């Protein structure tokens, strides 16, 4: 039972880490970023490269500094496109460009901070080893969620963001909606890359991973109801439960489980599990 819980928790964390940033960007700015996975992977690559070279604290600080420079670049890039199809085209190109650059900059090896994280040791829960790194990563993800929560529900900016995410035209009457969208792109990209860095404590980064990550993020986004952060968290939990159960009881289905979840949720609730209301037209 403990083991099943750990499995659930780890996969849940995994899904949250890949999807929260995308949910935020899509929710507020309606930017469908096909290069999303590449930013996640970039965070992992950078954190590993810098932390192994500079040591944990300076490395982490250097990573954060480099990551903070990313969002403006992405923002400028997205600004060049005029409509959703161009956005799709351009972010697909960006995915390819980043994959190519990863190879030139980082080579073809595996990048991971798992050894560093393993150095933290493990707690004994019910006779089973649960690495402290898992708790630490959980705290990091929860901290980020809390930041988003405070931002969205306790600040004026957040109020605008929610308004824009609910109804753009309505919000356009009272809110400077472009500014809010720009800010959310900034935050979403930064969070994505940061979570990629956090995930380096349990996974390895290699070439070709960007596209794999993208699908998980997409699935959580759609199941959760497009850009609703709580919905995305609930979706991650749902998929993690389903996946853990499948591996425990009928492992043949693991490959399918996330797609079946997408199909089932969209058939039952086309808007995802956490839509506040159905949009007319």
């Amino acid at each position: 039972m403990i083991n099943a819980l750990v499995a659930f928790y780890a996969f849940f964390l995994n899904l949250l880490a890949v999807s929260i940033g995308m949910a935020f960007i899509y929710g507020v700015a309606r930017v469908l970023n096909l290069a999303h996975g590449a930013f996640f992977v970039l965070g992992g690559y950078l954190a590993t490269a810098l932390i192994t070279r500079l040591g944990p604290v300076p490395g982490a600080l250097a990573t954060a500094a480099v990551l903070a420079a990313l969002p403006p670049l992405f923002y400028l890039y997205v600004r060049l496109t005029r409509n959703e199809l161009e956005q799709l085209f351009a972010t697909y190109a960006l995915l390819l460009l980043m994959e190519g650059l990863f190879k030139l900059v980082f080579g073809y090896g595996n990048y991971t901070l798992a050894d560093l994280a393993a150095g933290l040791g493990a707690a004994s829960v019910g006779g089973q080893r649960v690495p402290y790194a898992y708790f630490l990563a959980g705290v990091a993800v929860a901290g980020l969620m809390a930041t988003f929560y405070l931002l969205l529900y306790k600040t004026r900016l957040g109020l605008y963001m929610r308004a824009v995410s609910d109804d753009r035209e309505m919000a356009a009457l009272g809110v400077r909606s472009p500014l809010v969208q720009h800010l959310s792109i900034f935050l979403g990209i930064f969070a994505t890359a940061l979570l990629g860095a956090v995930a380096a404590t349990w996974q390895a980064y290699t070439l070709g991973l960007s596209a794999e990550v993208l699908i998980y993020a997409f699935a959580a986004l759609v199941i959760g109801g497009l850009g609703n952060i709580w919905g995305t968290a609930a979706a991650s939990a749902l998929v993690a439960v389903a996946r853990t159960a499948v591996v425990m009881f009928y492992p043949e289905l693991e490959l399918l489980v996330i797609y079946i979840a997408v199909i089932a949720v969209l058939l039952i609730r086309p808007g995802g599990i956490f839509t506040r209301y159905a949009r007319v037209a």
Partner: protein
Amino acid sequence: MRGWLSVVAFIGVAAVVFAAGGDYLKFVAAYVMMWSLAVWGAQLLLRYGLVNFGIGGAYAVGGYAAGLLYRHFGIAEVTLHILTAVVAAGLWGLLSGVVSARVRGVQYALLNLALSMVLYSILLKFYWATGGSDGLYVPLPRFFDASLGDLGLYLLALFFATAWMTLGLVYSQSAAARLADGVRINELRVSALGAHINRQIAAASALASVSAGLGGLGVAYVTSHVSPHYAHWSTSGELVVAALLSNFLPQPWGFVAGAAAYQAVRLFSLQFVTPELFVGVALLATLGLWRYYRR
């Protein structure tokens, strides 16, 4: 009129390519013409504002129609292959169209992606029947008693490409295309004008799937092989990108030229240390050029 002239000119060029081209060029030409049918399908749905990241599902259905018929029944008859591919891909398109017509935008893209990935998983799981991830051998097809050689395949590809150019011309003038524009631009209004939008989308999805299925069948013929990779979402992604590329080009040959341009760039890129960088830059350059000309 210009449209029909383009079709005739295209046939002329294809004839020149066959008469004067080397084996590789002839192969690539046939490959591109076959693949362009799948691009046509993706492009058709784009007209409705639908980005289908699962069009590869239909593409795979077409390819496996030939692979499975040959593997289990020894049937290499091209007419039977086409018939099976059309029926199976049409059904697949209708089914996925009916299911996914309820949603739009990202949900539509993802629902179709999920459907095609389920097909992908089935092709992988039932390996005793489907050959699993290794795929299936597809022989040179036969037309009644005659085996289609390179020329036969080339003619088939040319026939498909020109037939679909013609279909594209007919479609672009049709009521269905008008409605597609309406659905893309203002769905509420089209619905308030009496259109059963979901039914239109399901029909378009079936047509797009038949097109993609025949494309998959054709590519399986020219490469002698079909694999679950056809149904993988990355294949759909390539088709969607080629369709977006085709949207930059004029009718009726835009889809063939878009397919050719994408495949040329992709195949050319394989000689570089970082092919992705090359393809990415090429795509961006295309977007930039288009923007420059359409200022």
